[in-house]
């Protein structure tokens, strides 16, 4: 029996073997052919040699998540198959067990593995002579003597073989490969296309197009599509928002975002500064915000820990920013630097001493990353608060096709930002004027008549230090009012969403990057008779208390699903609404939830009567 347009493909190999580029070329070739993809990478905190793998899921319908099985596994090395069990400190047993029954494995024929070595009689093996094919490809260009220089191109041989087995349109792949090599590198592109062709032809000739049961076929394009990664979505949101200043200190997985911005800075006039540490990064950004430029910084947990102090200064001085992107990763301390986690919800809420308003938005997917980042800049200036966008490593590296982003109705709102003409009307300008709403009209250095002082000490309306009890009370109240105001003004539709039928007997509660797996998992649950809906909480601060109360009211069973140890959001919901969830499904092994884990977790609770479930399918 053959299946069309539903494939999970994985390529594994040592870091430095170029799995990213082939996986992304495959993905591109698929979306150009009207198919949908969801891809994500797992890698070590290492430059060269450690095992990494890239998962690509292709389907005829839009995908939001990955699954834990592999239909076609591509092994660039032996470790991808069998793991590193021969090491003194082994870490994994390879991926051969993950291949679905009826699936296949592409591997290097020169390893001369006996079929028994795989321990599977329900899959098809596709040994490919990587190196021989590469030499053949190089010969056509007279480069066979430079084999060592081009050795990495076995990745492209393997890609070609994959395309041959699923009988996909080679032209789309060669187009994608070609785009990766422009200018002086164009010749290298031709070489790669030839390598892919050799892999494709060999697989087709040796195994035929029908041995492997899954094939991919072009389908009609559903509108204009694009491929985007979380870091890009956030960065483009910043560009659209008019960000003019980005600071960072190198850290996984945040740095790609800053590098993306720097590579486009000339077009959009954005200063990108690599600071000496994250303390400097946040303070530079706050300085720029006070000076009137939309500013931002980007980091992950270890860097955000250093930013706590600066966050407080931004809060008490009512700086119009910065926007802070917190790409969570496994903590504490260095934790697992390249692995995902939703462990910093509570930290983002409480970082820095004292009490001050902050906004926290947690986008659930790459599209929300774009819109939420854009909104964050408007809020930073409208409410004069630091705004944290809480994403994670999984979102950062999630690579999927989306509809061409629509920017209709996106408007830059700079809040109460006075122009010189307005300032002169008020000869006694007070930067921290006590107002009904708590927001004081702001000026920026350089404006005549707008001189202000600002201090991390408690201050009077001019911004001069005070320790007066009554003024302290009024200033504290003024600042805290702003977050209440934001809660009233921002529409509910942005703050939380109930996906699925209101009447479903089971409500899944989650936030952030688990959204995709939950949505796909719900379909699978539905198909198996378990009807659910999903409350996605997007605004952590201001917390949509009444809305969450309303949406959870009457739900007979509430299951929290979180990529952390303690189900932090479930705790926050209880704190804010008094509502306790009934069950928890958590995962804290540094890997994101898959669609099938959602299915499994909820089934364990509903069918098997488990109270709390901890998953780890890594």
């Amino acid at each position, binding site marked *: 029996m053959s299946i069309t347009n539903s494939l999970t493909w994985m390529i594994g190999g040592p870091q430095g073997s170029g799995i990213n580029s082939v996986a992304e070329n495959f993905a591109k070739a698929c979306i150009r052919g009207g198919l949908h993809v969801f891809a994500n990478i797992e890698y070590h905190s290492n430059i060269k040699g450690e095992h990494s793998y890239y998962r690509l899921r292709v389907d005829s319908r839009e995908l939001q998540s990955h699954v834990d099985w592999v239909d076609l596994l591509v092994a660039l090395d032996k470790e991808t198959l069998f793991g590193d069990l021969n090491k003194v400190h082994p870490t994994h047993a390879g991926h051969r067990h993950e291949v679905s029954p009826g699936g296949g494995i592409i591997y290097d024929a020169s390893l001369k593995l006996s079929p028994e070595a795989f321990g599977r009689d329900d899959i098809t093996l596709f040994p490919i002579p990587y190196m021989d094919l590469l030499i053949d490809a190089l010969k056509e260009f007279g480069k066979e003597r430079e084999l060592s220089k081009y050795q990495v191109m076995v990745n492209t041989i393997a890609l070609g073989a994959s395309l041959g087995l699923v009988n996909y349109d080679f032209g789309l792949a060669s187009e994608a490969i070609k785009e990766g090599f422009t200018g002086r590198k164009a010749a290298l592109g031709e070489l790669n296309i030839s390598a892919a062709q050799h892999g494709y032809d060999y697989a087709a000739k040796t195994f035929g197009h029908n041995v492997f049961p899954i094939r991919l076929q072009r389908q009609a394009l559903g509108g*204009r599509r*694009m*491929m*985007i990664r979380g870091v890009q979505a956030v960065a*483009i949101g910043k*560009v*659209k928002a*008019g960000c*003019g*200043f980005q*600071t960072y200190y190198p850290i996984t997985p945040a740095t790609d975002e800053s590098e993306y911005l720097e590579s*486009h*800075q*000339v*077009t*959009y*006039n*954005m*200063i990108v*500064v690599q*600071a*000496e*540490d994250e*303390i*400097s990064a946040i*303070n*530079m*950004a*706050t*300085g*720029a*915000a*006070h*000076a*009137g*430029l*939309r*500013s931002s910084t980007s980091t992950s947990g270890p860097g955000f820990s250093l930013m706590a*102090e*600066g966050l407080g*200064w931004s809060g008490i001085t009512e700086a119009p920013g910065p926007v802070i992107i917190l790409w969570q990763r496994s903590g504490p301390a260095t934790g697992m630097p390249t692995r995902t986690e939703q462990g910093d919800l509570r930290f983002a809420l409480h970082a820095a001493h004292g009490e001050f308003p902050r906004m926290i938005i947690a986008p659930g997917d790459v599209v929300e990353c774009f819109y939420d980042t854009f909104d964050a800049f408007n809020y930073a200036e409208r409410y004069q608060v630091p705004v944290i966008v809480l994403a994670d490593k999984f979102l950062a590296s999630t690579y999927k096709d989306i509809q*061409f*982003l629509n920017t209709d109705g996106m408007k*830059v709102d700079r809040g109460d930002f006075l122009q010189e003409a307005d300032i002169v009307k008020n000869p006694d300008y007070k930067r921290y004027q006590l107002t009904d709403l708590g927001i004081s009209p702001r000026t920026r*250095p*350089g*404006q*005549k*008549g*707008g*001189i*202000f*002082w*600002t*201090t*991390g*000490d408690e201050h009077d309306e001019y*911004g*001069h*230090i005070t320790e007066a009890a009554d003024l302290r009370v009024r200033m504290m109240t003024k600042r805290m009012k702003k977050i209440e105001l934001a809660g009233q003004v921002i529409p509910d539709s942005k703050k939380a969403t109930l996906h699925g039928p209101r009447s479903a007997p089971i409500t899944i509660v989650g936030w952030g990057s688990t959204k995709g797996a939950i949505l796909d998992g719900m379909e699978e649950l539905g198909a198996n008779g378990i009807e659910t809906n999903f409350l996605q909480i997007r605004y952590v601060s201001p917390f949509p208390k009444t809305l969450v109360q309303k949406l959870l009211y009457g739900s007979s069973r509430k299951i929290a699903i979180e990529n952390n140890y303690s189900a932090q959001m479930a705790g926050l919901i209880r704190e804010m609404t008094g509502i306790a969830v009934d069950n928890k499904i958590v995962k804290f092994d540094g890997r994101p939830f898959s669609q099938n884990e959602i299915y499994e977790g909820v089934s364990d609770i509903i069918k098997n009567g488990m109270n709390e479930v901890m998953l780890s399918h890594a």
Partner: protein
Amino acid sequence: MLELKNYRTQVHNDWCPGCGDFGIVNAIQMTLLEMQLEPHRIAVFSGIGCSGKTPHFINAYGFHTLHGRVLPIATGAKLANPSLTVIAVGGDGDGLGIGAGHFVNTGRRNLDFTYVLHDNGVYGLTKGQASPTLPKGLKTKSMPAPSIQEGVNPIAMAVASGYTFVARSYALDVRHLKTTLRAAIEHRGSAFVDVLQTCPTYNDINTKEWYAGDDLPSKAPRLYKLEETGYDGRVADPTIRDEVNTKKGNALLRSFEWGEKIPIGVFFKMEVATFEDQLATRMPALAEKPFVEHDIYNRDIVPLLDELA
């Protein structure tokens, strides 16, 4: 014509009588007056401690920041709006203790601004603990025991870090301080001024009398002016590596003079491209006007989306 009162605020000053900070804030105001800089074109930044209160006494945009973080915040504001005259002030603990990393890295950037270090050897506001510039073996009034940590050399650190104007002055010699500050502000690049300062309440060693040399047999003042000895710290041609290295070496040698003779004046000065110059080379729009004055309402992101299509 701007007058001195245009640079002053009415904010109550709570520094101790005789504090060196008065000399510094007065000298800053007099320098700004002399240069006739418009107050709204100036931004003054400070760290935490007694000197942290400085911006509140100056009629200009004032930023009283965090302990040790004055330089990053000043850097962000200056880059956002390079047309501002930016002056940062801070104590020696602020700049060379908790903020030492920023001190070094700000020097590397050569931003066009001035950093004034209030250098009195003690943490005054927390009641007189040893600061990073207090030499080893000394015990000021409120310390329970002499310091067993070496003092750092701010001038040497500044030269090594890349500040392109490095000078020292004395808070109680307002005329010299004013001349030095003016040269620092007019310098295109990162200017560092180490201002030796008395703390009449807690530093009972480096007192006004000590600087005046009252304890020395010669009774001669400890401070002497570099330029009066024929010393010239200016690099004439920054493209000549040997000259740059020689001048830096000379500055380092002089910076370690301490005790009976302490040099003040300009140790090192070199004009090279600033951080802003380099950014403007990369982004010509920055040379036209500061990014704070750019229109951000209608950025077209379609080209970015096209790249991903």
